[in-house]
């Protein structure tokens, strides 16, 4: 039977919860659903706080903003954002070691053979500087310099891209204004009950005020509570704590640093790791830890002892279970953000996962209440995104060489998920990274962690051997070229000031590495 979209049964979208996820979804929906055909509404309560996830982001957020027609500089001002070129991982291999996972690639292929084979050869011969030194983004980040990436694919300036550190609450505020000014109806109130109809779909929710709010499609952005997707629909959750032992976090802001770094810091500690996210006017801090090994009090003390500036707020304690909802989209309810799963913010993926859920829902938006085919595909893709990121995060824990606690010893020896074990075996057998096309972290990221954190494989593409004795010189030249270019880049603070006056920021794409990839 032919059925037309104009006769769509899904016309009223009700978003439950107004954190980062709720307002991102709201903004995207009002942007893409014409008012004549659709109603978008959002229920939130001023009485319920939000977790405010994702202060550190990945470059894809620029694409999202771009899609909404948001001016980048206005966004920076509104969210007190700073530029971000990567994440610095400290103490993850052994205590005292450090490397940056940049938003960019390393070196370039020589004779059609991937760069890292040459690097591994020279590293094993102790003839080369660390791998991250071959990244333009790392060179700039380490010297506190910033410039927009270039479109010229022959320039090293085209080999990276950038993201932001943002105040997530301000971002939600900003998107709220965006959505409300475009006709979104915000409903203030706490949800009292959720009513399901005969077919198992959510019919409406009742507020404490007694009001009932219906909808054809519900977006569950209620955070950890997962009010609709779990409390009501009992969707089920896959627990990943056999690989990711951390289940708690304590967060606390501190004064901003005089020199604002261009990277997020992820510092491994005895029972977890500490984040440091530099904003314009404050620094976000937190300690992610495993409650198996330490109490909240001890964790809080650890965090306090390791702040770079005076605290400017109270500690906020969080409990979580790493894993994902078995179906992000169940019945007529789509969960986004923390309601759909939790992965620790080690690789700044929280906002990305919200964004992906929104984009994929737009792609597979239902026209009838029962859209099994689209729902299955949406769920398949979300599952794949979560699992690929999960494997990448586990890799960080697994490749540690620390012996100072059970957490690290366990992680180094644990049985890996099959999908990760296969990748790891391939890499250590041949220096090849298993490739996939659809996912956030691609070869440059896997290499950044493999080679930044642990001993490289012994075996690499032997064709790299046939290159002449000048190889080492050639690689040195790459590093000095990167340093030269960096020397001519403006300091980040100046760049930010200057760039904010112009509006010619570079094109945003759904890539972690800029135009070259």
């Amino acid at each position: 039977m032919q059925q037309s979209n104009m006769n769509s049964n899904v016309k009223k979208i009700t978003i439950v919860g107004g954190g980062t996820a709720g307002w991102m979804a709201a903004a995207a929906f009002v942007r893409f659903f014409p008012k004549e055909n659709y109603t978008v509404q959002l229920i939130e309560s001023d009485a319920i706080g939000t977790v405010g996830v994702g202060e550190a982001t990945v470059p894809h957020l620029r694409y999202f903003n771009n899609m909404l027609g948001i001016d980048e500089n206005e966004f920076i001002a509104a969210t007190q954002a700073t530029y971000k070129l990567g994440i610095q991982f400290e103490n993850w291999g052994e205590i005292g070691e450090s490397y940056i996972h940049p938003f960019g690639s390393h070196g370039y292929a020589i004779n059609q053979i991937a760069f890292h084979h040459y690097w591994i050869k020279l590293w094993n011969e102790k003839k080369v500087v660390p791998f991250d030194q071959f990244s333009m983004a790392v060179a700039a980040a380490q010297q506190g310099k910033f410039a927009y990436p270039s479109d010229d694919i022959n320039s090293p300036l085209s080999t990276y891209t950038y993201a932001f550190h943002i105040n997530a609450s301000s971002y939600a505020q900003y998107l709220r204004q965006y959505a409300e000014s475009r006709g979104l109806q915000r409903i203030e109130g706490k949800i009292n009950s959720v009513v399901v109809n005969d077919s198992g779909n959510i019919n409406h929710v009742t507020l404490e005020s007694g009001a009932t709010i219906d909808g054809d499609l519900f977006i569950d952005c209620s955070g950890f509570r997962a009010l609709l997707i779990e409390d009501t629909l009992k969707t089920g959750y896959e627990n990943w704590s056999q690989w990711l032992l951390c289940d708690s976090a304590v967060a606390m802001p501190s004064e901003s640093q005089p020199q604002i770094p261009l990277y997020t810091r992820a510092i491994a500690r005895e029972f977890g790791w500490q984040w440091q996210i530099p904003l314009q006017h404050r620094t976000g801090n937190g300690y992610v830890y495993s409650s198996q090994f330490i109490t909240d009090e001890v964790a809080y003390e650890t965090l306090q002892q390791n702040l770079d500036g005076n605290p400017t707020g109270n500690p906020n304690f969080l409990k979580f279970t790493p894993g994902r909802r078995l179906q992000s989209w169940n019945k007529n309810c789509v969960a986004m953000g923390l309601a759909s799963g939790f992965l620790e913010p080690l690789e700044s993926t929280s906002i990305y996962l919200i964004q992906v859920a929104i984009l994929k829902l737009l792609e597979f938006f239902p026209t009838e209440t029962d859209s099994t085919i689209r729902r299955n595909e949406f769920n398949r893709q979300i599952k794949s995104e979560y699992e690929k990121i999960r494997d990448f995060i586990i890799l960080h824990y697994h490749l540690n060489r620390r012996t100072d606690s059970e957490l690290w010893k366990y992680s180094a020896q644990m049985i890996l998920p099959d999908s990760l074990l296969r990748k790891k075996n391939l890499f250590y057998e041949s220096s090849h990274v298993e490739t996939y096309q659809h996912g956030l972290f691609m070869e440059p990221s896997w290499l950044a962690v493999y080679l930044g954190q642990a001993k490289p494989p012994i075996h690499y593409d032997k064709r790299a051997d046939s290159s002449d004795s000048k190889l080492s010189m050639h690689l040195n030249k790459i590093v000095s070229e990167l340093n030269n270019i960096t020397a001519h880049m403006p300091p980040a603070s100046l760049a930010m000031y200057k760039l904010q006056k112009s509006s010619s920021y570079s094109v945003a794409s759904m890539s972690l590495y800029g135009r070259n990839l």
Partner: protein
Amino acid sequence: MSIPIRHILVAGGGIIGWWAAVFLKKAMPDINVSILNSPVDDSYAVTTEPMFAEYLRLIGITEQQLIKYADGNFCFAQAYFNWPAERNQYFHTADKLNFNCDAVEFNQWLLKLKQAGHSLHLDDYSLSAVAARSGRAPILSSNKTLPSLSFDARYFNKILQSYALELGVTVIDDEIKDTAVDAEGEIDFIVSSKNGTFKSDFYIDATGQGDLIGKAMGVHYESWAVCLPFHKKKTLVVPPQDGRLIPFTSVHLSEQGWVKSTPLKNIVICEYTYTDSIATENKKDPINDFFSTATATHFQPGMRKKSWHKNCLALGSAAAILDGFSHSSFYLAASSLKRFINYWPHHPQYDAIENEFNRLMRMDYEAVRDLHAVHYAAIKMQVKLPHSFWSQVELPESLQYRLNLFMDCGRALPDENNLLDPTQWLHLLIGLGCWPRGYDCIANHHGNDIYWQYSQQIMKNVQGVAKTLPDYNSYMKTFVEH
């Protein structure tokens, strides 16, 4: 396997065997490469993918040379006739058709128009299709990559042979009598009919039948007959109609199978892929008369469970047999050889590389299988009273899943390897008449009148540009001379 590999023996003297010898020697000059030049049944016509130009460059052959010496001809489109039913006609091209209307993708607003009852033909929007149909050279097409290239395998074989000799490949003109496998299951040596035994570190099975990997090593062959139901083939070479060069291949559906015509510079190669399982009851199929002088060969579509097993790599038909719509066996062999060189076993512990290689090859072969099966799916889905033969054709699960999604919302999923551009897949289905039921809600952004105007404008532009293009025959004359 003795590592490092110092010697490779290529078994089989078809174009895939010779290609492997040349490509290996060129990529690894230090390795001794021998070829056991035993005869292999090659198709006469080979049409490669646009990407193939890159491979040619790697071994130092230009497209001009291929056109000049191997009777080559460009292929800008594949025309489908009577597919899925009589009088249907569609020119399939690699054109991207990026005619987005604001944020609304081309195919999405097109679907919306279709649902509003407009009569639409996908190939009206494609410059390559409009130009190819009128005998013009669609060189100004917006995507800069050169199109597919067709050539005569018999001439190409000769080019490769002389090139191999020049590079220092050892040629053994002989036939395989037997292959000895050792206790570990590796190939120990090959026994030839006349020259005794040959021992090597690594073997390439380009025998077509899989004499090494299948017969000797026992790697199982998985049949895909249930979704690719044809198993016989006849080939005929005819002179071109009225002596003009045609810039597209064509595929005609007939009662018992289909005929693909590949026009080369001086001849046209016609291949009839068919089955006897469909009885021609009422009338005699004229196609059978046309091919009556040609001999039939049998083939079995499917793939080897592993194309790299221990010290043997299977290429071409020894690894997988697919229908001849696109992504020729030769192109897949060339790309898998390139992949193999990339994953080269440098030390005795190579299980993970072998597994990864085979995993990727399976994804590639299955993606192409699914694309080929789409042709039959189009018949199954549209022909009102399909012959019982067609109702017995079963689509692979992976394809059925993608088709369901496509029919539901007009989206084509990319394969995990990104071997095939999903838009190609989508265009093929729409072109063959499978219009989805739904479309993106974003397409409701504008009313139909805006899309209709836009569509008229695109067609007008395409026709306008096509008229300015040179005649294909004269274009080719200058192209070869340059």
